[in-house]
């Protein structure tokens, strides 16, 4: 984990209000793992004040490039979206515990399930899994057609099903209805209701969920981002989403 003043290489609006930004810093390499995130400072001043957690979507370790995809919605992300090549992006990272790529082997099959702006980390995950010989299948849920992104990119790695809440693209409805039950692993990132629906997916080898939580420090010091531990009767046990997560094995924490 380091503080990097990375250089913005390119920024593109790849769907409605969805931006793909690529940054360069010599310290960006294979230590950045799928499911980990970086904590990004938007703007130079005190407003907005806090950093924004953004997932790692892709790493080019040779060229030292990091790709992130984010929705420009609030104060910070809208500022970020105004940045142009040459600008300096101040980020802390890589942060947190990612997906257990190492434990997935050749021949395993995996469902990668993303919801909205939870899709980006799955791209890097899918890349790394396919590299290892894992068979991946993707289901991505979006609100509506205009915010769908990276469909072609994911297709290059494995089959992709898109669902939209309003039926304007792909299947109408939720991602959960699109899953068969014969995968070894399920990896998911998206809104809490989606994660709760996937918690009990009967994967043979494991279900891993990436959580979202409002953060202060992003490094484990402030206790803003805790969640309860399943089965803990004292109510005192906890995990920090920023440093123990954001990825947890299903059943570990209370969603």
């Amino acid at each position, binding site marked *: 984990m380091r503080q990097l003043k990375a250089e913005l290489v390119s920024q593109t609006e790849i769907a409605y209000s969805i931006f793909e930004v690529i940054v360069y810093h010599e310290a960006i390499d294979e230590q950045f793992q799928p499911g980990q995130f970086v904590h990004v400072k938007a703007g130079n001043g005190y407003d907005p004040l*806090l950093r924004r957690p953004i997932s790692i979507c892709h790493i080019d370790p040779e060229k030292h490039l990091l790709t992130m995809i984010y929705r420009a919605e609030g104060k910070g992300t809208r500022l970020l979206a105004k940045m142009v090549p040459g600008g300096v992006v101040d980020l802390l990272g890589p942060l947190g515990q990612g997906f257990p790529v190492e434990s997935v082997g050749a021949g395993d099959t995996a469902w990668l399930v993303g919801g909205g702006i939870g899709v980006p980390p799955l791209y890097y995950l899918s890349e790394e899994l396919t590299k290892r010989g894992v068979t991946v299948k993707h289901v991505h849920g979006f609100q509506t057609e205009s915010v769908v992104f990276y469909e072609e990119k994911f297709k290059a790695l494995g089959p992709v099903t898109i669902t939209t809440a309003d039926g304007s693209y792909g299947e109408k409805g939720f991602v959960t209805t699109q899953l068969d039950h014969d995968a070894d692993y399920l990896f998911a990132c998206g809104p809490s209701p989606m994660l709760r629906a996937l918690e009990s997916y009967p994967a043979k080898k494991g279900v891993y969920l990436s959580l979202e939580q409002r953060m*202060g420090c992003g490094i484990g010091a*402030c206790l803003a981002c*805790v969640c309860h531990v399943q089965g803990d009767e004292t109510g005192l046990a906890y995990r920090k989403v920023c440093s123990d997560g954001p990825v947890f094995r299903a059943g570990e924490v209370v969603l």
Partner: protein
Amino acid sequence: MSRLQIELPGLQLRNPIMPASGCFGFGREYSQFYKLDQLGAIMVKATTAEPRFGNPTPRVAETTSGMLNAIGLQNPGLEKVMNEELPWLSQYDVPIIANVAGSTIDDYVSVAKRISTAPNVHALELNISCPNVKEGGLAFGTVPETAYEVTKAVKDVSSVPVYVKLSPNVTDIVQMAKVVEKAGADGLTMINTLLGMRIDLKTGKPILANGAGGLSGPAIKPVAIRMIHQVSQQVNIPIIGMGGVQTAEDVVEYFLAGASAVAVGTANFVDPFVCPTIIEALPALLNELGVDHISELTGRSWKKEWNLQSSSH
């Protein structure tokens, strides 16, 4: 002697900069970024007698140039702090200021008594100003009589000097300061957070699960400066100032107002290197201001002697 060295009750500080309680855990996370013995001291997270989980999440919300938190004094409890956190911290040559919290006076007393015996705890910070717990906390810090009582009770049992952390959520901060001074406080730390709230437009509900929370960050600095300016003229114990400190310039502003040392809270989240960066920047700033030792700055905004001196320039 270094230009930044400061002596306060119980504390020999190599410089007057320390992370504020609750914004630095027990130091482990930030030790990944730099050696903790560069710091003047460390104010560790509030400790209560028993472990606490704290409030439900979301626990933080951003505000304009500030943030709200409602952590709710989550901490591993006295035993674990004594047996794990403080021993771990003892690898660094840096004085620890232990932040003591509770729901009853007995709570405070039992934590204070025990934690003040830890070898690296050089002072206590009595947290009677936490806005984020239902009982105790803020109540102690807004009622003069209870503030007096808890301070006195803790002073009676503590093996090290006691600093009382004042809440800004009061009509008369000077009265509170005088009351705890009378009760035997060796110093003051101020300010804790202002009570604030943000509401989510989409849900119509407060962003924090707890409803209200404590406002920190640059937004509150003018309130802290004003209170320290008032209080430092009315008490004879030193003040460790805090609230929105981000730069060496901010530190000087606190000293001018009347502080003798400064704590940095929220800024650690934004820039994990903020404390060492400030420490490094201070000597050049002192040069610019023509000041030999930083302690000369304490209270200059109101000190008459300095008015005379400066008008003779």
